[in-house]
């Protein structure tokens, strides 16, 4: 599996003097082609910063981002814009659409801006998959939130980008609409071989992904592959424990029925094996 984008030694520092905030701290990160990656973490963990840097929307303080083989930090604004336009698709949490344009016009907007022809067959296919066929002439104000996000999905896919980035794309949606959008992203990976990267703090949304990366305090701290919602939730509860000790309810001591103490660990565990490799192994078993 080849690499669609990678980050090396990525560091982003905001502010100066005493107000310095290190949003990303020397992060190495690869995005695999044809994979659905979820970047997870609580607010302030650096997940959005990582996505923005990977998507060439922002420039790192140190380190480098490669989209394919292109080093992003050396690019001027215009080639950067062209790179975003041609190789990257975006779905934002809200305000994805230009209000003066219809759904169809919004979908083909990046192509039009680039002055490129629309591939009608591809358009029909994407629109068909998203079920937007009867909504194409509507203005954004005439669409529901879910429909708007689906239009945004279609737009993100129209130029067949290397990577589609979603920044909490379902954050503003009800659960039904969210499921539609996530289902579509999943299908775009499975059916079109699209690479998708999504930032979310929602375990349910992340469960649609092949791979979940956990950030905390600007570092990648954990990674899961093919995790279920339960896996993700439990991982989250370990990685991001509540820190207020007074509120912590002491976990009940595991005891045997007869009242005797249970062993503190269940047999030998290879602590050296990273979770990533474990999950690959598990996937191999499952696949």
């Amino acid at each position: 599996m080849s690499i669609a984008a990678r980050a090396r030694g990525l560091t982003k520092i905001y502010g100066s003097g005493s107000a310095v905030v290190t949003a990303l701290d020397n992060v190495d990160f690869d995005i695999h082609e044809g994979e659905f990656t979820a970047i997870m973490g609580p607010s302030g963990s650096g997940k959005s910063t990582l996505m923005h840097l990977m998507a060439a929307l922002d420039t790192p303080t140190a380190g480098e981002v490669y989209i394919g083989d292109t080093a992003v930090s050396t690019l001027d604004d215009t080639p950067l814009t062209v790179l975003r336009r041609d190789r990257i698709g975006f779905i934002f949490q809200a305000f994805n659409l230009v209000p003066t344009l219809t759904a169809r016009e919004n979908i083909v907007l990046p192509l039009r801006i680039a002055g490129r022809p629309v591939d009608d067959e591809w358009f029909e296919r994407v629109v068909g998959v998203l079920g937007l066929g009867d909504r194409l002439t509507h203005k954004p104000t005439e669409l529901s939130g879910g429909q708007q996000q689906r239009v945004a999905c279609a737009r993100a896919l129209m130029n067949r980008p290397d990577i589609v980035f979603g920044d909490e794309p379902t954050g503003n949606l009800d659960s039904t609409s969210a499921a539609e959008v996530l289902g579509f992203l999943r299908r775009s990976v499975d059916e079109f071989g699209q690479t998708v990267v999504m930032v979310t703090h929602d375990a349910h949304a992340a469960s649609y992904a092949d791979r979940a990366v956990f950030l905390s305090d600007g570092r990648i701290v954990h990674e899961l592959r093919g995790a279920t919602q339960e896996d993700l939730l439990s991982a989250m509860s370990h990685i991001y424990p509540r820190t207020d000790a007074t509120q912590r309810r002491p976990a009940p001591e595991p005891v045997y029925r007869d009242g005797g103490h249970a062993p503190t660990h269940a047999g030998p565990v290879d602590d050296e094996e990273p979770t990533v490799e474990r999950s690959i192994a598990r996937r191999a078993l499952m696949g």
Partner: protein
Amino acid sequence: MLHATWRSLWAHKVRLVLSALSIVLGVAFVAGSLLFTNLLSSSFDQLVKGALADVNVSAEGVGIEGFDQTTGLQQVLMSPDDVAAIADVDGVAQVEGMVSSSQIFPLDKDGNLLSFPGAPGVGMNWIQAPAAGGQVGARVVDGRPPETADELMMDPATVTRGGYVLGDTVEVSTPRSGLKSYTLVGTGTYGAGATAGASYLFFTLDEAQEIVQDGAEGFYAAWVVTEPGADPATVADAVEAGLPEGFIAETGDDLAAEIDEQLDVGLGFVNTFLLVFAGIALLVATLLILNTFSILVAQRSRELALLRAIGATRRQVRVAVLSEALAIGLVGATLGLGVGYGLAWGILVAMRSFGIDLGTAVPTITWQAVVASYAIGIVITLVAAALPARKASRVRPVEAMAAAAQSGPERIGGLPMVGVAMIEVGVAALVCAVWLDVPEPLWWAGVGAVLLLVGMVLAAVVVGTPLIAAFGAAYRALFGEVGRLARLNAVRQPRRTAATAATLMIGLALVATVAILAASTTTSIRERLTADQRGDFTLSPVAYQPFDATVIDEVRAVDGVTDVYEFYRGVTRIGDEPVQLSGASADGLTRASSLELIAGSLSGDGGAPPAVISREVADGHDLTLGQLFDLPTPTGGTVRLLVTGIHDGGPGLQLGDIIVDLDTYPQLGDASLVQRLVVFTADDADPAAVRDGLEAAADDLPTVVVADVEEFIDARISQFSQLFSILYALLALAIIISVLGIVNTLGLSVMERTREVGLLRAVGMTRAQLRRMVTLESVMVATLGAVLGVVLGVVFGSVLVSLLRDDGIDILVIPWLQLAGFVLVAGLFGVLAAVGPARRAARLNVLESIATE
């Protein structure tokens, strides 16, 4: 609550500045117009009142020096005894005999005339006496009055213009004695010192009589100062009783009123123009402010909703918005008043650089200007804020907080329909004014024009639709999606776009009207002059003042000159009616003028001298061909003339109502001063040599200009160009204000669309494309306004010209190329207006923009 308002005001400084700017601009526009109008009228008041005595004695029908351009007729004089007798009349404190001419021009150091085309060069004896009502009359500014024949005093403005200092020798062109040199011993002036372009030269009494009256003793007028407490009207009656035949005594107040009336013909136009201008300024200002505030409050709907959510009542929200508007309005109006004051000064300085001196009058802040400024600044701002504030306070907090901080799509509503109705009524009124025989057509046209203009402002959305569609198609073809987006942005808030375009529309409507008026006026005059021109060269004076006739013989002697025809001009009376009298030869009338004779000719049969009279005179006095009539001579006799021809007035050179031949003219008028010479040259003569010869002949007469026909016409027309350039300068103000209005609206629109800009950038719009998008939108709005304005201007101009047909503007010329140029320039202004907002938009950080609430 108020605290929160202030905090929010300060938090958005750019927005604050932009919104205050719109008020400053609007108020400055109105205040500037009002202040300048006031300045003009006070300046002319000073000029008029300062130049009149309590009681003024003059020959009937001659008028007061300086304002009457028809001088050149032989003056009837009072003897020194007549003047001395006035002093004995009850109630007279002082009496001074006056000698004056309006044809005495100072020369600058290069020997060129120090005067402005059309402005008189007043030369008179120095009189030190108070003016009407005890106002300061003539007074010494610097130095001393002339004491010997070779000394003179000049008005300070002319001295400055000529670069003279006291003690310098100044050459002066006189009508009878050619060039004479004087020593400048002082500067002095009348009343407030306003000269309105005229020059004032003061001599000793003897010298004045020498150069003005050829040394004749006597006075053409007398300056009478009444004793304190005496009623000028009573004194005037008493004085008049003792005057020789033909002289009258008038009070200063009566004369001032009369002169005001005369001036109103010219000045009234300027006043009306400025008033219309101020009204339009008000309209533009209102549009600007309404526009800005509706954007502002829409942007803040979320913030207001938050205030509602945390417990502010609707009333509190409304009060907050209104107090904010009040604060901005107050600051804006104050600044605007200041800027307007500066603008009035700017116009004054500009006029001075044109050479039009308005004397000591300076812009003073009048209560009208203050009231208007604050009324506009505060009331209109409050009204502008009240509507959106109501809307904002009505919205349920939750709704508003969920909505994006943007102006919603606008409904076009009923106003444009009202506008369309107004346009229809306005057009109907204009049609009535032009084609139907209605009373007071100018009023009909005025009302029609106002209705049309306001209607267009209201209905610009509807009227501009085809234009916008055309633009859309062109943009799309030329600039692809960027052009399309620009068009969509421009029509997103149709009312806002229309209001912005309307400011420019109003300005350009005026500019186009003036352009058409200017083109039509100059073309009409040119046509008339061209049709009237005969001969190869003309010798004519600047400022219409006749010149020494002795030059005729010198001109005849120039090599290559075959014929010279002279034209004299004066005044006479037929019955009780003063009429223009001309003297010309029979050949001259046919060869050297274009006057159309309805019947007859100017040739006698050896009996009574012949006369050609105008049809008006013929009709008015029941004269026909072959009848005899009498004209008075200046010395009290009469000359019996035979009507040998009738002319139609017709185009041209304003030959008089009565034209007599050269033998008769000296009996009726002053043949020592000639109005105009028309020179014919031999076919083989070298024009340049003839010209040099003619110039040498006229060397002693600096007021005389030798011109070939084209030059002559050009010189006449350039006088009008100056007037029109002042009008253009005023209008430039309107255009500048409206361009700044576009900058303002565009800047606010871009701010409002920050998020959208971020999105467009994120999905691949380059900075260049973004800048282009903003620029195209601006160009579209500007051009829309410009095209509508030019269309309006063409209508106004055409109507005006057709109504002024009787006043000599008989050819309607629409300078299409110039008008197209205006539209093009407006488009360029659109580009300029977009520079700031486009830069701002392009500089926005993509991430921050998207994150903007």
